[in-house]
């Protein structure tokens, strides 16, 4: 680089080359994200828009698709008692499942983070059920919850408690599913454990010097430091909880909904409408109502988060 580039002759090609390089860069970027983009357009956005339209029709997948305005929604809110039942069942499930799993996951993670010998083994044991899923696990729980030969009632009997009929008693079907969910609380635990290990040790040392006790330290250091993860966990498990389906489908004899419809959850009802009677317009309407409910709850969660979620290094 001995000679300085003259303004007119050399700078312009340089600039053009940089532009084309930027363009080439951008082009490559689009190529890299294109699989996602194509998928998003064709199997997410497109279908969603279609289903939004379908929810205002009497679509039945084969012959008809007439615009019926708000007909599906009117029917849903006024003429379908099972809709309200299913919404009620789902709210019950979410209202108990989300707080319980969160509390258990945090407690387990805090206990595992105490520097106990054998922490890795405990971690493996508690996480194991979280990797197990699918029909095999549901069958296992049907046996565990079996009123006469199951493990749970056997143990309860041993300590002198007459266990309920679980999946055969309308009052106990949802608690059964929640207990099953609690068994696999290890996934959330692992998330909390990872974030607990990120809490700076100096904070605890400083608090200890100031004479803060165990619970004080938990309440004023541990808990605030992991609130972002608690928030994330609550949001995702609320969304997940509203979609409870498989366990209810498998454990209530292929979607019959259990005793007195106590296991007819929102998605199970939607499933039966869509794929048993092919009332697709109605089912897509239900899907959108669920979407709006979940969105509203997520927004509420986000607003509430300002009050209790602590972000290190200020607001984001």
């Amino acid at each position, binding site marked *: 680089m001995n000679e300085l580039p003259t303004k007119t002759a050399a700078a312009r090609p340089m600039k053009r080359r940089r532009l084309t390089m930027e363009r080439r860069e951008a082009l490559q970027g*689009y190529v890299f*994200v294109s699989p996602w983009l194509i*998928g998003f357009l064709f199997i997410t956005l497109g279908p*969603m828009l279609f289903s939004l339209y379908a929810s205002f029709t009497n679509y039945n997948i084969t012959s008809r698709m007439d615009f019926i305005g708000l007909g599906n929604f009117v029917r849903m809110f006024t003429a379908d008692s099972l809709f309200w039942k299913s919404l009620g069942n789902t709210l019950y499930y979410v209202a108990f499942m989300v707080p319980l799993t969160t509390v258990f996951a945090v407690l387990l993670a805090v206990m595992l983070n105490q520097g106990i010998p054998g922490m890795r083994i405990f971690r493996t044991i508690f996480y194991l059920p979280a990797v197990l899923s*699918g029909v095999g696990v549901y069958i*296992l729980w049907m046996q*565990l919850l079996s009123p006469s030969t199951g493990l749970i009632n056997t143990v309860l009997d041993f300590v002198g408690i007459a266990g309920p009929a679980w999946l055969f008693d309308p009052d106990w079907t949802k608690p059964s599913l929640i207990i099953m969910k609690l068994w696999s609380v290890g996934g959330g635990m692992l998330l909390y454990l990872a974030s607990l290990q990120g809490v700076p040790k100096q904070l605890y040392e400083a608090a200890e010097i100031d004479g803060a006790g165990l619970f004080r330290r938990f309440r004023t250091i541990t808990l605030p430091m992991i609130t972002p993860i608690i928030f994330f966990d609550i949001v995702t498990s609320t969304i997940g909880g509203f979609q409870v389906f498989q366990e209810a489908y498998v454990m209530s004899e292929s979607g019959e909904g259990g005793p007195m419809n106590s296991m007819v959850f929102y998605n199970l009802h939607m499933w039966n409408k869509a794929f048993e009677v092919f009332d697709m317009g109605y089912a*897509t309407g239900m899907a959108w109502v669920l979407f709006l409910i979940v*969105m509203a709850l997520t927004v509420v969660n986000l607003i509430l988060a300002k009050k209790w979620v602590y972000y290190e290094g200020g607001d984001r």
Partner: protein
Amino acid sequence: MGAKAQTAKRRYYKGLAFQEGLRKTVVAILLIGGSVIILSPIWWMISTSLKPMEEIMQYPPTFFPKEIHWDNYVRAWTSPAAHFSRWLMNTALITVCVVLASVFSNAFIAYGFAKIKFPGRSFLFAVVLATMMIPGFVTMIPQYILFAKLGWMNTYWPLIVPSLFGSAFFIFLLRQFFMSIPNELIDAAKIDGANHFYIWLRLMVPLIKPAVATIAIFSFNGAWNDFLGPLLYVNDEKMYTLQIGLQTFKGTEATQWHYLMAASLMVLLPVIALFMFFQRYFIEGMNLTAGTKG
């Protein structure tokens, strides 16, 4: 004064050590109790799968089988009401395709979002994250209609093709890995004249092998345990996967718990084995999620 303070101090620290020891003991007892509760269903499953039916019905139930019936496993697997060998092959085929497709697509897409500048990148990535909030059923019904119109009913295409388009959570995880790689490495390769495809294949993918393993394991689990997909799209009994097969087996065997437990255990076995051997990749994935959400 000096001596007195010394003993007070020592007593104080002794007290602290005692408190610490007590705390650890209590926690250890709770954890051991918890482990017993967590593991007992699995033990119960193994034990039930080895008992004869009379022993299962017996009251009070036994925690250890009196006589061990390995033949329960053979009988369950070869039951005329099921085609487990066939279903295993089907499931293995689908799982291999899904794992390969999703490892490739997610690593490819995530690199684009992590390391290449293009207009609209942050917007598109926000859309990726937003799709995680969409309940599955909202897209599932219209997807079903779409795949039905494409004539894909009773084929494995609806189970495999979507994994070619990546999934939001995996893209998010892999992007985190890519971001931790210094840009200088890419710039140096660019100066040498390499384009992004070359850099991705030759430089980046080898560097993020652990992350790729994490994605491979997660998507293996997803495909192996997929119940909804095959339930929707596969009707022919010969084409069932293990999950759907197990569900029908449950229907025909009703309360033959020894066979049901044996069959369930065999279906769960690959997942358990994978977890035991590659546990650190599961934990890696979780650490990353926690680290970035915090």
